[in-house]
């Protein structure tokens, strides 16, 4: 009995550590670490030949037209995040990327993401229970 309680407690601890819902406050950085860092790395450097660096470059720090639709719909092998992140979350994480690791581009607002979402017809889709 005791053992199973402890096991459940360990499970709960790990759960809290990984659940975005349980996080006190979601920040651009926490969203980045959860959704982007697996490929682009916490350093933002990416992996050469596979995942591009997010440091500098027109796509990330340039004027907006390409960046938001890329994150919404995916491109060149990058996954689509239109169903994973809300407009507010996307604004947070993109602002974080545009102002980290030496990047000095302007912040992105939720409204800008909402507008881009409509323009790119990238409405969130309900998740399927199964894929393949």
């Amino acid at each position: 009995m005791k053992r199973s309680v402890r096991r459940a407690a360990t499970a709960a601890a790990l759960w809290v550590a990984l659940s975005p819902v349980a996080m006190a406050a979601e920040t651009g950085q926490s969203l980045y670490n959860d959704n982007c860092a697996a490929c682009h790395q916490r350093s933002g450097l990416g992996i050469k030949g596979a995942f591009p660096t997010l440091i500098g470059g027109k796509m990330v720090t340039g004027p907006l037209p390409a960046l938001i639709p890329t994150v919404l719909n995916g491109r060149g092998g990058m996954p689509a995040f239109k169903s994973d992140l809300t407009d507010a979350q996307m604004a947070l994480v993109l602002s974080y990327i545009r102002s980290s690791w030496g990047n000095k581009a302007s912040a992105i607002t939720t409204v800008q993401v909402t507008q881009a979402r409509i323009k790119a017809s990238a409405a969130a889709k309900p998740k399927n229970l199964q894929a393949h």
Partner: protein
Amino acid sequence: MLSDPGTGSGGAFTRRRFFEQLAAVGGVSLAMAGMDALGFGFASAATLPPSLPGGAKGTRIIILGAGLAGLTAAYELGKAGYQVQVLEARGVAGGRVETARKGFVDTDLMGNRQECDFDDGQYINVGPWRIPYHHQSTLHYVRKFGVQLELFNNDNDAAYVYFEKGKGPLAGKPIRKGQIAADARGYTAELMAKVASKGDLDAVLSPADRQTFIAYLVNEGRLQRSDLSYKGTDGRGFDIAPGAGVSPGAGKETTPFAFADVLNSKAWSVLNSVAGWEQQRTMLEPVGGMDMIPRGFVKNIPEGVIQYKALVDRIQQNAKGVKVSYTDASGKKAEVAGDYMICTIPLSVLKNIKMDVSKPFLEAMSSVAYAPVNKIGLQMKTRFWEEKHWIYGGHIYNDIPGIGTISLPSTGWHSQKGVLLGYYSFGGEAAKISALSPDERAKFAVAQGQRIFPEYTENFEKAFSKSWHLDPHNLGGWAEWSDESRKAAYPVLCEPDGRIYLSGEHLSHLTGWQAGAIESAWQQIAKLHQRVQQA
């Protein structure tokens, strides 16, 4: 069709009329089934490879990638007389058709090296794992190469559903799918039947249809014929199972959940009137692992045709032919030339290889997204899901972030151990978990599974995890076309650019399925052959 068109007698049924009506419904539904079979497009499905008559005229074809598209092209073109050379980046054929068993090694882009240490005979299909019965293209080769099949349980009413984001007493509790189905449909049928019997649906139902409709609802929802109420049904299980003698005798059926509790639980998310076309209940799997299919191809393709561990550096073409520069297994630079090329490298990887194609073609190639996809196999020392829970295969649907689906093996019934699928997740959730080390991924999967099965942790022995977006040869599980790129880019890529033909699951509407790769190859080699014939 019905002799007595409901004379306002409401829900009062005679036994005879009830059966007459069922027969009437059966007649209609049989007729419908016949029509569906015609209208469903069975006849239009690509079930056989194209015939390639007329000879190959000494044409040399270079095929990049020995996944199912490349293997299909190599096998069929080779049979038709073409000189075929396949370059494959991995040390084995099959591409994403990977089966992890003892000794299987995977090193991802983060440098995580895993060597599968499952017991002999244990395995997990980290790539494709089930074949819908209507994927006759895949089954064509399964049949041809004598690959043994077994049934894959894709829908098990006895499997648990676990939704913790709902509300009420059923939220966060493992519940058998059949119980949720019985109650949700039973109560819904009861509501509809009562409304209809009062005549409230007469605007859309003729009196005769009304009676037939009610008969259908009684049947569908397993309602009490006397008052059209739902009171539970044997199919949702027993508190005391029926058996011998007077005790347990007839046993005692379970009591249904309250309708509000079922609705609030959100567990009904797993219910659909019928399984989706890609998720039909009847699925198949090769005995011993999905890689039996690529192995079947390899046995039937002449030795030397496939060159392994060949990494493509540069793809060139001009008006006369194609040329590929690559690095071979020993690290030496090499070249191979041919007349045409079939390139099956995933677009996510191909974008990093310099290639002579037109600008619009390049632009189209870059517009497709690839799905992050995770799987983990957990070797368990007993098959507690069968022994303790009586669940023989099927899926544990849940809403635990990062887990997606937990699935129980459809093979090795009642043997000592088993490997279950501890998570199968996509998108952002998959990206998050893949950032963990293989050990941490296993810990995560075991801790979450423990919430559903109390036996999980104590039975866990070994794990093997795969993140397809971190595999250097794939950079994603499957292509994901947005509506826009499907319209603009997809048709461009389905046609050759000069002498280069692309092929793979990404160039089909069966993305992520083996059938997509095979049927795309069939289509491209047919086009190529026609061109050679006309040249």
